[in-house]
């Protein structure tokens, strides 16, 4: 399984693509594979602020409900309604069209505390 090198990762299986102040957030291919069919995704409204580690939504498979956690603190500026409307699309594309929210980060340097692709890959093999 490949993990894009340009992204940062959390141990809770979220990824973030940081570009200046903006961060695009999603869940990893590993998480989606573990969950199985994704049948429901609940996302916050734009404008809401979350601290790092806060639950900003949920992702549900047929049998499980999992919280989504903010990798870094920030304010939601965009929500992917396409994923909300067809959660099954996450199965085929988690890193491009499968993004969940975009945030304006409080401190863009916070991403330096997250895992890089190699560290995340090592973590899930544990």
């Amino acid at each position, binding site marked *: 399984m490949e993990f894009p090198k340009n992204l940062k990762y959390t141990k809770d299986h979220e990824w973030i693509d940081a570009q200046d102040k903006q961060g695009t957030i999603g*869940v990893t291919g590993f*998480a989606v594979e573990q969950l199985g069919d994704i049948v*429901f995704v*609940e996302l916050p409204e734009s404008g809401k602020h979350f601290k790092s580690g806060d639950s900003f939504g949920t992702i549900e498979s*047929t*049998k499980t*409900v*999992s919280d989504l956690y903010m990798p870094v603190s920030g304010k939601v500026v965009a929500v992917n309604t396409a994923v909300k409307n067809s959660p099954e699309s996450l199965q085929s594309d988690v890193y491009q069209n499968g993004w969940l929210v975009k945030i304006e980060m409080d401190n863009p340097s916070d991403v330096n505390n997250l895992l890089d692709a190699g560290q995340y890959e090592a973590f899930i093999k544990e």
Partner: protein
Amino acid sequence: MTLSSTAAEFKNTPLYDLHREAGAKMVAFGGWMMPVSYGSVLNEHKIVRETCGIFDVSHMGEVRVKGTDARKFLQWLTINDIDRLMVGAGQYSAILNESGGMIDDLIIYRLDDDEFFICVNASNREQDYKWIKELSSRFTVEVEDESDRWAQIAVQGPKSLEVLRPLLTTNDANRLEALPYTHIQKTSLLCESVYIARTGYTGEFGFELYLPIESAQKVWSGLLDPKAPTKAHPIGLGARDTLRLEACYLLYGNDMNETVSPLEAGISWATKLDKGDFVGRAALLEQKSKGVERRVIAFKMIQDAIPRQGMKVFFGDKLIGSVTSGSVLPTVGGAGGMALIEMGTKEGDEITIEIRGQQKIAQIFKRPLYAARTKS
């Protein structure tokens, strides 16, 4: 997000290795490691509705009751009317405690005038056997827990007969084709001696096979023969749950337990209060005369959200009960489930389900949510 991992110390069915080889995701269920899915729960659900899927349900328990008093004993032990059960037929029933609460729901097959074969839930097997054994002491019967000797494979879906046919002699295939719903027959499958029943837990036409554990791998592989004219697919417990939920078949531990009576669970049709005395009958009669205060209903979500077991159910501002089973409903569409709620609502009424702090609107529907095609 947090992904759960499973611990060790569970029993394996004789098909465990084959499931692992097939890439199944295994989960703990009722003390067993069972396949939850071989890939996609939704796809597996669809396969059973449209063609044919096979399930390893070897975790289920089997108890044999025989002897001169067997009929009399089971008539007293169970809620349904054994006298209406002819040799070769099966009957949905339940065993109750003295307070009328359900110890288990089960299927009883009558193999002979004084010999019965009972299929019980995996998680209840030990306590069922203990209860049955204890109550049998006043009767001339032998009660034996044969669970360790039997594997069980369910073959479910409109193409089930075509999937089984290549494994049977022409004569046995014809006998199977003529087997009425709920009936059971002994037959030879790939030269292995098995019982086949026209029953299931999916709402589709299909069969349940009881086979000696030594025969399980051979039959499972035979059913999945890639060269067979009609292909079957392995199906995990994930789809088994969404299939049974659409058909509104109850799941012990979710939709009923020792504090829920069969009248509350909505299986009055299998509860024969006028057949004579049976364990729990007095409590049921009292409940009936006072008026049943709650019942298991089916509902569908109006607002987008997935109900889950344990979530609170409201009617207006009033808390009236909780969700007993909830999920997406792949064939019916949307999401829904069953709930145990106080009397005072009717079909069509809007209720709300508290989902992560928010009240989401749902509507009460007539059971079942999916009309079973078991008889087609």
